[in-house]
């Protein structure tokens, strides 16, 4: 008897190119259309073909956004998938695979499933993906109708025969799933949302992209590097509809300089990259600092140093962005925890960059960007695009000295003024200077805006019991896993705190944590944010929960780590 109530995890494993991602995409879409809450996350090897990839699909009664180590069902498309995921196969895991893929292994929950056989029967072995989705729906006892409709949409262009063959393949998998569920007493009860609200099903990359479009981003120049490439691709696909200039740069150095040129001339410009590519952009960050040209940098983190684990996840580039660029100047670092927040923060990033003439970093990571979840449409915030550009007059000075360090920003060709920006230290007109008094004023000018940026810094979001003495802090993509762990623990003495702004920090945070036992969890080896909290606000961090193996935190391991927090 296998009973699953309101939470099930189905993992699909196969080789790169076998369509594991396609299966997951279809399944989550169909389940979402049936009113279920779904979440999917993917891990893959840095290969084009072969290797071993897997996608975890969670169907839950409550909305969840975290990876679980547990596999309730494993659907394995080849023998490697079983070997690759062996460590996660438990007594209770039901493994659906062809007998010869099990390779003599003793797997308690093995169920001989002729996936390829069904595909062939339907007309072509490539229908295995469709069989797998049908199988999952049968096991879950969810009607096949939405999937048949999905297949008709997807394959409409390929003709009636392909559509009907796919539907036949789905049906074979589905019937087998239904039969197996009865035979093995598999019972899945998950309550779909009663009145499903209007929701979008998106991945993290799409969330960041929607945010960039909403922000009025009009120029991107970037060089492909996982996992930052997706945003460049997203904007390329939307370039015509929104008049966005999309340039694939010859290298990251060109990318950031092109973005600065475009921004100087008035575009809302953006670059997207990963740690290695960003390392090449650093001189450009310094240029943005001295010229006060607004810039937004999206950095999708992955494990380093150097090439590291190119397709995996980590949160180790906080210090890189915090200290990027030689010299001293202001900056802002944001790190969304949910997709709705990513949409909102991208708009805020451009707003801050324009208004305060500074560089704003948006830190995400592979786990965040490749995860799929639904976002309630009413949670999508759209801010009006405010321009902070003035029409210049004769005698305009780009670096006019003002009380708050911010000079009205003119752009070339708009008004009668001349707009000169300079990488050298410069006077108010933008001409190079070596006058020490001017130097002092300009250094001040560039740093002064940190005061107002600090005041406007977003406060962290609390979850869990009010007044708990233990506060667990996370940032960026770890919001979902910490929320679920705290929800699972249900302890009155443990609450969570998620930071979506990492720099500058709001001083009120220090007061908030004054009397608390502070624990910080982050996906890196040293605790970069814990150090920052301590340095900036004097927060004493009693424990660090760290992970830097290339994998996101699982709910189980966070629960386990937090169970060790002693009761008073």
């Amino acid at each position, binding site marked *: 008897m296998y009973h699953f109530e309101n939470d099930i995890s189905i993992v699909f494993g196969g080789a790169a190119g076998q369509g594991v991602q396609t299966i997951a995409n279809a399944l989550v879409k169909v389940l979402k259309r049936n009113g279920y809450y779904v979440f999917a996350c993917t891990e893959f090897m840095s290969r084009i073909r072969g290797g071993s990839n897997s996608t975890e699909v969670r169907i839950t009664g409550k909305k969840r956004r975290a990876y679980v180590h547990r596999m309730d069902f494993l659907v394995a498309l080849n023998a490697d998938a079983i070997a690759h995921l062996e460590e996660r196969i438990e007594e209770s895991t039901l493994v659906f695979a062809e007998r010869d893929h099990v390779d003599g292994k003793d797997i308690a929950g093995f169920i001989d499933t002729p996936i390829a056989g069904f595909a062939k029967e339907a007309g072509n072995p490539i229908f295995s993906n469709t069989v797998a989705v049908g199988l999952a729906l049968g096991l879950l006892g969810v009607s096949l109708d939405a999937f048949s409709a999905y297949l008709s949409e997807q394959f409409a262009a390929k003709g009636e025969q392909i559509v009907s063959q796919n539907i036949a393949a789905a049906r074979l998998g589905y019937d087998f799933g239904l039969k197996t569920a009865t035979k093995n007493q598999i019972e899945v009860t998950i309550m779909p949302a009663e009145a499903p609200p*209007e*929701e*979008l*099903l*998106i991945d993290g990359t*799409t969330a960041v992209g*929607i945010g960039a*479009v*909403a922000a*009025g981003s*009009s*120029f991107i*120049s970037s060089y492909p590097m996982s996992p930052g490439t997706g945003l460049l691709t997203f904007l390329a696909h*939307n370039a*015509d*509809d*929104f*008049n966005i*200039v*999309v*340039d694939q*740069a*010859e290298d990251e*150095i*060109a*990318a950031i*300089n*092109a*973005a*600065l*040129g*475009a*921004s*100087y*001339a*008035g*575009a*809302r*410009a953006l670059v997207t990259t990963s740690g290695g590519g960003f390392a090449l952009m650093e*001189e*450009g960050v310094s*240029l943005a600092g001295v*010229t006060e040209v607004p810039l937004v940098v999206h950095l999708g983190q992955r494990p380093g140093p150097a090439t590291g684990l190119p397709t995996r996840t980590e949160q180790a580039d906080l210090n890189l962005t915090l200290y990027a660029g030689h010299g001293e100047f202001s900056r802002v670092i944001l790190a969304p925890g949910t997709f709705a927040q990513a949409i909102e923060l991208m708009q805020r990033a451009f707003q801050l960059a324009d208004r305060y003439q500074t560089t704003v970093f948006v830190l995400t990571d592979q786990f965040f960007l490749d995860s799929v979840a639904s976002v309630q449409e009413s949670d*999508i915030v759209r801010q009006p*695009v405010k321009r902070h550009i003035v029409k210049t007059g004769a005698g305009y000075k780009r670096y006019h000295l003002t009380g708050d360090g911010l000079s009205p920003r003119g*752009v*070339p*060709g*708009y008004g*009668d003024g*001349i*707009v*000169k*920006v*300079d*990488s*050298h230290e410069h006077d108010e007109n*933008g*001409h*190079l200077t070596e006058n020490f008094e001017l130097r002092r004023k300009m250094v001040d000018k560039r740093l002064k805006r940190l005061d107002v940026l600090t005041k406007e810094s977003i406060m962290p979001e609390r979850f869990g019991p009010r007044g708990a003495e233990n506060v667990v802090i996370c940032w960026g993509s770890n919001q979902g896993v910490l929320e679920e762990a705290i929800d699972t623990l249900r302890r009155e003495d443990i609450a969570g705190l998620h930071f979506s702004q990492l720099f500058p920090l709001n001083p009120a945070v220090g007061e908030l944590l004054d009397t608390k036992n502070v624990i910080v969890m982050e996906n890196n080896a040293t605790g970069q944010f814990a150090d920052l909290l301590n340095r900036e606000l004097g927060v004493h961090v009693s424990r660090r929960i760290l992970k830097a193996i290339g994998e996101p935190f699982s709910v189980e391991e966070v629960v386990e780590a937090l169970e060790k927090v002693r009761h008073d």
Partner: protein
Amino acid sequence: MTENPFDTQGKKMGWCPGCGNYRLLDVLKDALHELDIEQRSLVIVSGIGQGAKTPQYVNAHMFNGLHGRALPVAMGVKLSNRNLVVIAESGDGCMYGEGGNHLLHAIRRNYDITVIVHDNMVYGLTKGQASPTSQLGMKTSLQVNGVMLEPFNPIAVLVALDAPFVARASVGDSEQTKEIIKQAVSFKGLAVVDIFQPCVIFNKMNTYQWFKENTYYLPDDYDSNDRTQAFEKAIETEKLPLGVIYRRDGRELYEDLLGITHIPLYEHEVSGEAFEKMLAEYR
């Protein structure tokens, strides 16, 4: 002659007495004035080096950026507002050394800017080391036994890559340099002008006299549309040709390939209808 609107008043110059940059600055301003370029529509982008200081002394918009990076910035400016006239200006070290990769890819893209290279065959601002175009055998503080690498041949590379406008001038002849700059600025597409000029402090080899003796003008009947002939000219070493070596009009601009309109990006608006349509894809 009427007053030149590109002149700046009372600025202290950062160049050595006798530097070729002075003459090039004057020639550039005259060329722009004679072309009736509107001051408010001209952006000069430069990198770092003595030549790269030129826009500091021109009364027009300026982006004086990083060493080697004038071209990507210039592209960004042009794609952001194609109504602007954009000139990228820097030395041989900046354009052919640090920024070499950008030059190759600028040619592939072919956006409508003018690239002016102050080619004095030496690094001036860093005090006299060899540049990519330094001649064999020139002794410097760093090349103590003389330059041992063959000089980079920008003209041959440009013609090989089918750059649509390739010219070389020598600042010793102000009139001809001005005429070439005027042609380059008027050209629709990426126009590169390599301009010989002396560095009176660090390059004792390539003086005004040397440039005079080692160059010649392309004859009047020279057909600059003939790429094969241009390549022959490009690889001559005994005497170096001056003039428009190669030109191919009508090559499609990157701006047009990207479908960029004449509405500057500072006027960009997000279409509400398109936004709704985009969201609908994910329902």
